[in-house]
């Protein structure tokens, strides 16, 4: 179908002097789209030409509109010889194709030349007129929105989350097919830039088609990568999560407008997208509704209900359990496993009072009953899905969609999201990852010339006879990931990502994610808002009925919300079966709710769920490893690498564990492990944010053991070291404000007179859990806790443990979006990229030596960052993203992109939070005293209803099972290995704290806070003619509200120089290139009408140099979402309070 693309060239400025004689330039412009080219007149003798051209009109297919960039070339007219190119601008017009994004592109674009960099600017106007296309067989997917953001974008709400979409496209790399190998740098670079731009467009279009097929309208968490495979070609691949998003209507804007000014803008932002839905107008809740109503009824007239439930006996609970299993997303295997569980539980329960057991079971019972509708659905899903696979059956039931195609897409229940609408993520199993080492050979290319995708559209039709393609490789890996997830009793993988590392003809493919159990809440599309409202009403009834004062109001308000929000510990509860754990782990009862089992350590690739209960602050934890490898060719090389990988991963894991313990933390979020391969070494870098999850047991210390205790000096050495470690741990506890005993005490100490046994039960639990860590030492997981000093590796570990310099005062760092424990961000933010390349001059380095070098490199880099940003103190480096590479034999390259954000030192707010928290807890416990079965109740109210409401029974929660993290190296053939990090889960109860806390917090603080912040942020930048564009790798900007997403930014640049010295050497060259990339990103965003880029990511930075020839080349690929944000202060100006009660509730809910 046709669309009309119109472009107008307005003017140029700051052009370079092209005519030495006159010191001027005779510039004209060529505008090209597809095969059509227009030219402007020559504007003679000026460095600031005013072309003011007519509108150039291109009539094109929308398919082309999606694939092709608009190419603008600025040239210098030369009468006697060929015209000299000044530079080019590529404009991606995709943002204009979606009605909700930008409508016009207008602004100054830097004119870019791959040899000279930016050479002046050009002012361009671009518009698109699209005609409606009703052709069902169209190849275009205009209108599908793309977001790099890995959460539901701020001003949308998720109606449905359809699932994983992926695509890849391959082509010859022009760089390597250059005629006769005579490479003309400019032509080659431009061909590459253009090709990649085309391929990205095509890829996006194809993914869009898949999304449309699935019934979605957007891709969230879109991640596109390039593999420069050298002679074997160029692969562009992308993954994402298909969703159906609804733009929040303006009616709600005021509501959100207030709410950003609450104390925790970050959290707020993440949830608001969802929270706004709370007023529930067009709600799409699944079948769970009846359940919801039920839950609530069970809650408010609590006594009768709870009595009833308590009376239910174990038998009863058994029945529903089976029912539950059918509909739950657990796999059939689990199903069979689960039947013994009640028994074992009963057995176990001999020790603890049986009451407890029956309780949890009854809770379940209710759920399962309410789930009947779900059940039906699941059943029907089974039916239609046929034998689609027993394995995937329940999963599919969960994810079911009407269409067959959609079903097939579910082959991979992966989600690239890292944070979720509340209530979506039920339980987290642990990190799953898979790697595979492949030998690259020429990509089989059946169709000549053109870009061609080798996608096998239907995974199921894949057969081994097909020529091996990149698709097949990835499928293999994804299958493995899937099976790992299954082994963890999880049906989905969240926070999923894929990456490659290529060295010569060896390629390592990696994929990782977090096994999880999700609620079907967003996977079904019937909208039943009536029930929703109903439950809300009940909630408010309850509220008014409550005898408590203000504080309670807060809490009840949030209670009303609980159907939307999982409580702070639920996600920690293990999803797998305690008796059939895929790895050894130590389970204890959740320290929050005391009902469900949690692992002792939890590793995940996702962001910290906003509702999570965290003690103290978090910090960036990195494991770094460097291993030498013999130079080898082809197969031998691949084998060598495969053999090394498991050890590398194992050591990384051990290092992470030790560092985690050293900081007295028990969970990692945002874990990202990068393995990079070079000719003669392998680099491994694992980064994550460590936190202390309140629900998990407190980690034991690190104990050092010597193997030969005979020698006294040796013993002394060890005890010295032990002392050092203990001191460090103590120091870290203080630094990160980790003070868990208090909390435990509080919970235990809370007066719960009636259920005496139960409270005793708790105590015994907590005791046992404390013991557990000690027990650990003598138990299986030695490597995590006991460092044997005889072991050279251990020495190395200890060394690296102790050499990690603490962050300077006033600094915090994390690689996730938000830092637990910091709430009062100011609007000061500084995004930066830093790159270092280190040359190893000593070729005969040992592993230890290499390790030290690499470790120091990273540490020093961090130190430099802290120093650079010292003026922003107190501040936190968020989303610290390290990438390592081995560009050449003796080079190690480390690139970091992160954002530094200041926060108000003023901790009163936080204290306020804590005290409110405590008050609430008291209130709650008191409240509970009056109820007959308080614990049960609160469990119900806080977590269960939620889960069930989502149409998912507490699959995993009620199964008290589990062990801890482990490494699974079972599968390595040529595929290297995969390890499953385990995690934990937990239940909830008493501490519905986080929710309440937040909402009351919001009450307490928001306005003044918001104002002060706005004062600060209002510092105007008047006087500059250039729009200030903020950039951040986060999905939000503190103190602001994103009001519009303008489209995805996905840019690829190459820069080359043949006069390296003259440009300031490698540093000067790269410095200006990165600055230019930033400038071009900003210019494109400004031209779309935006003032910020969120979820900015530098996905690729390939740097090559040849100092002897005075040459260097660099490729950079960046992406992000262009947005318009407004400051809260501006929003506050509009009347802040929404009037309806429900709106109020909603805003307080969002606040959390």
């Amino acid at each position, binding site marked *: 179908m046709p669309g009309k693309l119109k472009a107008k060239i307005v003017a140029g*400025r*700051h052009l370079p002097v092209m005519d030495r004689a006159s010191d001027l330039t005779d510039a004209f412009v060529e505008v090209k789209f597809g095969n059509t080219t227009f030219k402007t007149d020559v504007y003679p003798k000026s460095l600031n030409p005013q072309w003011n051209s007519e509108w150039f009109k291109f009539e094109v297919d929308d398919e082309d509109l999606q694939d092709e960039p608009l190419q603008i070339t600025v040239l210098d007219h030369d009468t006697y010889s060929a015209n000299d190119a000044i530079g080019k601008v590529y404009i991606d017009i995709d943002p204009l194709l979606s009605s909700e994004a930008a409508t016009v592109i207008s602004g*100054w674009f*830097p004119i870019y030349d791959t040899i000279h960099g*930016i050479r002046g*600017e050009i002012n361009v106007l671009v518009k698109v007129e699209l005609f409606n296309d009703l052709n069902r067989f169209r190849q275009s997917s205009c209108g599908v929105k793309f977001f790099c953001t890995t959460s539901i974008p701020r001003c949308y709400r998720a109606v449905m989350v359809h699932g994983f979409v992926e695509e890849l496209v391959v082509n010859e790399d022009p760089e390597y097919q250059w005629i006769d190998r005579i490479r003309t740098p400019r032509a080659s670079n431009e061909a590459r830039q253009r090709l990649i731009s085309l391929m990205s467009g095509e890829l996006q279009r194809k993914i869009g088609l898949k999304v449309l097929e699935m019934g979605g309208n957007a891709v969230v968490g879109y991640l596109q990568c390039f593999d420069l495979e050298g002679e074997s070609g160029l692969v562009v691949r992308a993954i994402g999560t298909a969703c159906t998003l609804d733009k929040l209507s303006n009616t709600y804007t005021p509501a959100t407008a207030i709410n950003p000014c609450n104390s925790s803008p970050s959290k707020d932002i993440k949830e608001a997208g969802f929270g706004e839905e709370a007023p529930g107008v067009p709600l799409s809740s699944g079948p769970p509704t009846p359940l919801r109503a039920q839950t609530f009824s069970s809650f408010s007239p609590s006594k009768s209900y709870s009595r009833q439930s308590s009376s239910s006996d174990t038998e009863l609970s058994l029945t529903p359990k089976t029912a539950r299993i059918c509909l739950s997303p657990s796999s059939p295997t689990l199903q069979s496993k689960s039947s013994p569980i009640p028994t074992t539980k009963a057995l176990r329960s001999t020790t603890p009072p049986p009451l407890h057991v029956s309780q949890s079971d009854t809770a379940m019972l209710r759920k399962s009953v309410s789930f009947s509708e779900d059940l039906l659905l699941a059943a029907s899903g089974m039916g239609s899905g046929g034998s689609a696979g027993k394995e995937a059956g329940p999963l599919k039931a969960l994810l079911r969609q009407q269409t067959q195609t959609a079903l097939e897409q579910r082959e991979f229940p992966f989600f690239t999201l890292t944070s979720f609408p509340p209530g979506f993520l039920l339980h987290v199993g642990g990190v799953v990852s898979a790697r595979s080492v492949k030998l690259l050979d020429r990509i089989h290319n059946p169709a000549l010339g053109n870009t061609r995708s080798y996608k096998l559209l239907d995974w199921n039709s894949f057969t081994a006879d097909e020529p091996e393609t990149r698709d097949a490789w990835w499928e293999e890996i994804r299958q493995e990931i899937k099976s790992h997830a299954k082994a963890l009793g999880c049906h989905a993988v969240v926070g999923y990502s894929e990456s490659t590392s290529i060295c010569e003809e060896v390629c390592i493919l990696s994929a990782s994610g977090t096994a999880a159990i999700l609620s079907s809440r967003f996977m079904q599309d019937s909208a039943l808002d009536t029930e929703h409202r109903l439950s809300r009403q009940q909630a408010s009834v309850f509220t008014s009925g409550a005898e408590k004062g203000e504080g309670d109001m807060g809490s009840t308000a949030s209670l009303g919300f609980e159907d939307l929000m999982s409580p702070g510990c639920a996600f920690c509860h293990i999803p797998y079966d305690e008796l059939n754990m895929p790895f050894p782990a130590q389970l204890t009862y959740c320290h929050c709710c005391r009902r469900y089992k949690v692992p002792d350590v939890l590793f995940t690739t996702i962001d910290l769920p906003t509702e999570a209960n965290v003690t103290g602050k978090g910090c960036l934890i990195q494991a770094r490893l460097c291993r030498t490898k013999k130079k080898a060719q082809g197969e031998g090389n691949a084998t060598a690498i495969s053999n090394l990988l498991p050890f590398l991963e194992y050591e990384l894991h051990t290092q992470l564990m030790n560092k985690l313990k050293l900081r007295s933390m028990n969970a990692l979020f945002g874990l990202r492990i990068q393995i990079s391969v070079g000719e003669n070494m392998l680099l491994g870098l694992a980064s994550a944010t460590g936190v202390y999850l309140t629900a998990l047991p407190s980690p034991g210390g690190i104990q050092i053991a010597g193997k030969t205790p005979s020698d006294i000096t040796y013993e002394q050495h060890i005890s010295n070291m032990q002392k050092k470690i203990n001191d460090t741990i103590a120091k870290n506890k203080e630094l990160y404000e980790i003070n868990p005993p208090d909390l435990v005490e509080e919970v235990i100490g809370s007066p719960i007179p009636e259920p005496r046994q139960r409270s005793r039960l708790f105590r015994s639990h907590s005791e046992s859990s404390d013991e557990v860590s000690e027990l650990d030492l003598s138990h299986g997981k030695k490597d995590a806790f006991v460092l044997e000093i005889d072991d050279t590796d251990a020495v190395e570990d200890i060394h690296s443990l102790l050499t990690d310099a603490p962050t*300077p005062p006033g600094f915090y760092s994390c690689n996730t979006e938000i830092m637990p424990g910091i709430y009062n961000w100011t609007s000061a933010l*500084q*995004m*930066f*990229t*830093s*790159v*270092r*390349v*280190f*040359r*190893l*001059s*000593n070729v005969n380095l040992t592993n230890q030596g290499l390790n030290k*070098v690499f470790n120091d490199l990273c540490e*020093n880099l961090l*130190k*430099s*960052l*802290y*120093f*650079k*940003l*010292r003026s922003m103190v107190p501040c936190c480096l968020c989303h610290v993203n390290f990438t390592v590479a081995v560009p050449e034999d003796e*080079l190690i*390259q480390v690139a970091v992109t992160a954002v530094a954000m200041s926060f108000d030192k003023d901790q009163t707010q936080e204290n306020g939070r804590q005290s409110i928290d405590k008050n609430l807890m008291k209130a709650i416990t008191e409240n509970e005293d009056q109820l007959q079965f308080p614990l049960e109740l609160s469990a119900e109210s806080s977590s269960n209803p939620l889960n069930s409401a989502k149409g998912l029974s507490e699959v995993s929660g009620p199964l008290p099972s589990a062990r801890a993290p482990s490494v699974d190296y079972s599968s390595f053939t040529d595929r290297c290995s995969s390890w499953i990090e385990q995690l934990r889960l937990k239940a909830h109860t008493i501490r519905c704290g986080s929710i309440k806390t937040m909402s009351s917090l919001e009450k307490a603080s928001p306005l003044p806070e918001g104002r002060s912040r706005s004062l600060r942020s209002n510092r105007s*930048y*008047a*006087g*500059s*003619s*250039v729009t*200030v*564009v*903020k*950039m951040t790798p986060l999905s939000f900007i503190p103190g602001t509200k994103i009001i519009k997403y303008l489209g995805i930014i996905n840019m690829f640049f190459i820069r080359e120089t043949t006069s390296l010295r003259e440009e*300031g050497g*490698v*540093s*000067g060259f*790269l*410095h*200006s290139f*990165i*600055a*230019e990339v*930033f*400038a071009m990103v*900003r*210019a494109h965003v400004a031209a779309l009408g935006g003032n910020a880029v969120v979820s900015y990511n530098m996905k690729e930075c390939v*740097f090559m140099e040849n100092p002897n020839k005075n040459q260097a080349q660099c490729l950079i690929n960046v992406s992000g979402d262009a947005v318009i944000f407004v400051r809260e202060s501006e929003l506050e100006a509009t009347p802040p309070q929404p009037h309806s009660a429900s709106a109020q509730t909603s805003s307080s809910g969002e606040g959390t």
Partner: protein
Amino acid sequence: MSVELDVFVGNTTIMDKEVYQLWLNGYTVNDAVKVRIEGGVMEECEASAEVLLSDTMDQFRTFQMCERLLQNPAKLANQLLFQIPPDRQAMLIERYYAFDDDVVREVLGKKLSKGTKKDLDDVSAKTGITLKSCRRQFDNFKRVFKVVEELKGPLVENIKQHFLLPDQLARDYAAIVFFANNRFETGKKKLQYLTFQDFAFCAGQLINNWTVGAVDNMVEDMDVDLDKEFLQDLKDLKILITDKDLLDQHKSLVCVALRGKTKVFNEMEANFKNLSRGLVNIAAKLTNTKDVRDFFIDLVEKFIEPCKSDKWTATDVNLYLTHYTNSAHILDTFKHQNVWTRYMGVIKSCILRMYHE
């Protein structure tokens, strides 16, 4: 083993004022690091020398990249490469164009040519300011000179507009341009005691009163070139010394006015004719370019030095010049009142400024 490449790029360009100053001062990276270490940043921020070196190199590189823009400050505001908040931009520009009085004093009134630039190492040696910094300053003078040379309108305004400089700095540059254009001699030994600020003040006086711009403000070079007609008219003042009656009359009027009011009355009375001749001769000779160049040295030789040797105080000078100027107005036969006022106004303030006790 070495760090081969080390860059840091912020979306908002990070610039440390202190490091910027070190860069402007022409320090090498290593020297700058030393200065910073002595300044105590390290203790403040728990940094190591390595970190400091990396930071300094990085910033120096940033400044180098910015330098091109700083040379055309108007560009800085609408370039896209560096995102710099406007207040920072203003700081960068102001400091980039700031100069050392000692340096400018050396080149003041000289032709801003390559030859002069070559002599900058002497300037550097004499002033103790790095050659690099001297060159930057010299290039700034030259750049401003070239740009405003051919512009219409008031000099100071033009400088402000094209280089986005604050008022005082723009005035200083105007003085430098004015001196360079008229090639006033300032290097003679007798003038060594005068500072740049003295000359800048005088330049201001001359620009405001003696240039074409003082009468007509829409001509080229209006503030750079002296008003030719006025210089021509100055010849008429000669009558004050050539006409014996007039001279005596003038003298007696001044003596009457000053009697009893100054301790150096006798010296004044004895020297009156000499002094008056000196001043009027300066006026009469200003039509010759050569004599324009010697304007300041003439003032010193013909007026300031004689007074000094007679131990006049600044007050005495002031008193004398006031009455000397005013008395001429009372002379019936003296017809050139306007020219006299325009001339003496400038002379008086210049002399007062140049008269250091």
